[in-house]
């Protein structure tokens, strides 16, 4: 075989297998909220996909083998952490056996957030507790900043060649968030002191942000379906405290929330717990917008 052919073959193979610094970073997000932020921050340098659609229970997204293939090929996986995805993401990561995820490729979006409801005692008698605290940080209108910063830091450490662009995009996104937060605070002032219940304990951060009173849940304990005796006590409490607003999340039936609302003369409002949880919630900002709008309409319509 001629030397020139060998040299050409070597050059071609080197070219084919040379690291392509302009290749896009493959990002897999556990939930569409992080996919949206990753697209905002990553811009043209990322290919992003979400494992959850947004209408599921974030604790119990059905595992499909195709998800394992996506995780196997990812450069980066973004998760909430705080055990929110413990029932479905770790088995995918284990099966995919992607070495990149052990070397800093697994980004925990909630890092650094002040976590609410960290249990002092862990016991199964309290239902399906989250040992690290309430994980539904993505429902905190004030958490967008920290989620976005963590995603930016994670993308930058995995693709330092694009760090400058990521940080520029982050700055623009943070400006957008600043403006939106002023809007939300202004519009949400009406919610201050409004009492409500929900099906599952999703809304602690939301209640804190808008200074609402989160009275209880239709579930007697996390992950335990509503029982007749618990609902009777809850309805009594709602009547005593004048609670009229019942929040229903997309993965739950509206039957029990409707019954409870009828008994207290209140209103059911359906809110998204992830992006795409409502038709008009295509981005994280839109999700907060849509949830706020729905809640304000419900309050105006007799939910207070």
């Amino acid at each position, binding site marked *: 075989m001629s030397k020139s052919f060998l040299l050409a073959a070597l050059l071609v193979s080197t070219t084919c297998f040379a690291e392509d610094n302009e290749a896009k970073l493959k990002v897999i997000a556990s939930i569409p909220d992080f996919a949206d932020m990753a697209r905002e921050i990553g811009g043209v340098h990322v290919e992003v996909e979400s494992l959850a659609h947004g209408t599921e229970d974030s604790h119990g997204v059905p595992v499909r083998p195709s998800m*394992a293939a996506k995780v196997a090929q990812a450069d980066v996986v973004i998760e909430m952490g705080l055990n929110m995805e413990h029932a479905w993401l770790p088995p995918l990561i284990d099966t995919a056996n992607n070495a990149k995820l052990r070397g800093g490729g697994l980004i925990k979006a909630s890092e650094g*957030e002040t976590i609410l409801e960290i249990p002092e005692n862990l016991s199964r008698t309290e239902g399906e507790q989250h040992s690290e605290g309430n994980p539904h940080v993505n429902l905190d209108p004030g958490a967008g900043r920290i989620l976005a910063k963590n995603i930016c830091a994670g993308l930058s450490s995995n693709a330092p060649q694009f760090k400058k662009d990521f940080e520029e995009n982050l700055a623009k996104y943070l400006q957008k968030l600043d403006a939106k937060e002023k809007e939300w605070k202004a519009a949400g002032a009406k919610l201050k002191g409004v009492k409500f219940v929900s099906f599952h304990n999703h809304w602690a951060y939301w209640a804190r942000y808008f200074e609402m009173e989160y009275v209880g849940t239709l579930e007697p304990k996390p992950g335990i379906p509503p029982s007749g005796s618990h609902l009777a006590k809850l309805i009594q409490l709602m009547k005593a405290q004048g609670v009229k607003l019942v929040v229903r999340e997309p993965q739950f039936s509206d039957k029990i929330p409707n019954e409870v609302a009828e008994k207290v003369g209140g209103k059911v409002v359906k809110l998204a717990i992830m992006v795409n949880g409502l038709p008009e919630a295509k981005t994280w900002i839109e999700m907060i917008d849509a949830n706020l709008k729905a809640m304000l309409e419900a309050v105006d319509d007799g939910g207070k």
Partner: protein
Amino acid sequence: MRRTFSRRAVAGTILITLFVGGAGHAGEAPKDVQAQVNALQDALVKVNTLLESQQKKLDEQQQRIAEQEKTIRAYKNLGKPLGDGPAGPSAEILARLDNVERQAAQAVKTASRPKASDSSPYIGAAVDTAFRYFDGDNGKAGDRPSGNDFNIRGAELIFYADVDPFFKTYMVLNATPDASANDEAVPSLEEAAISTTCLPHVTLKGGRFFVPFGRLSMIHDHDLPFVSRPSSIDNYVGGESQGQGLMASSVLPISHFFQVSGGVFNKIGAEFPLLNPVDGTDATNSRRSSAEMTYFLKMLTSFDIGDAHTFELGASAVEVPDHEIRRNLTNLEFTYKWHPSGQSLPQKLVWGTEIMRNEQRSQFTTTATDALGNPIDKQHRESITGYGGYSYVEYFFDRRWSFGPRVDLFQPVTPRETVLPDDPRKATRNTYEQSYSLFLTYKFSEFGRMRLEATHKIYTDRTAANELLFQWTVFWGAHTHGFDMR
């Protein structure tokens, strides 16, 4: 505004007081009046001096107040943008606040840092109990009595841990009562295996573990979708697919899900006899050649149609190549899942099917007589092939409730038993043992459930039996959701 004491007013007041007082003393001698006037003048000088001192102090305080007001205005003006925009914190203040938040978060994190003891293994357990009523013949009741029977199907302790950056490990200890030994439950090692975590896209697993042959043979009894394991799996695989050996598996790094697994074992099947060489010597005094090992291969893929429909297709094979002991078990598995998102109910439907072909060599001895009437033993070897499988549907109509039917058929294959020429099983070789079941599951929570199963069995000798099972299972401690349990 500068405040001043009105010195004139004060002086005037004093003079008036003195005048009024002095008027009361009118008529005193001129010398006394002069002395009093001198005293008044001295007092006035002193008062003036005091007033001047107080004024000076007041001036100083007013100056300090003015300076502080100036400082406050300066701070307020720091965030004021050009134009008419609302005031807000400056970039510097935001950066400093951000830094303080991060330091506080770090402090919290440090305070809640795991202690050395937190690297202990995770421990979980499962307690699986059942009541059975079986109205069939005693010989067909399996390893438990027919009639009424309470049983601990399994009391399992599971330990799992990351060993280091390269390996992880787990161990399962199980105790099941032995009806032939007064229901004594002796703990035994069900699984103990080591897996690699450091190889890209490939996992090596070695030890004793359930080989992923087909779909359900690798699932522990308490994790099955129903109470009893399908008879086709019990008979062909030998219960759970336990094996001791080494396996490699990989989800190929392509966009489509495709998983390949392969391995070599002493044997596969918890109840399957440990193969001995043909000469019949026991395992401890024999030599197992490469051809006498059990080889395993599996391929699995899946297809999604939209968001709601998932299909999984797999093919598995187990082979013992040795001509004398030959075992060849192949499996096709098909699973369909309907799980609509966008709906407000946790509805789900699973349809699972496995079809198996089992070929086993069996050896038996016949006794003939020679010309003198002396008995002569003659060895025979026979290859027996059987087909079997099951199919079930499970519908979840609620977070708590699910139910479904199951059909299970197989042609009995008896491994390595002596089969006499007039054995009735030869005559029934082409018939199937059949089971038709209905099952209902109620989940209290993720960690506890009850299940009811009713089965009608038809055996190859045309006898029938009915079985009613009630299962009560709980899990405690640490728990993992394995990919195989999807």
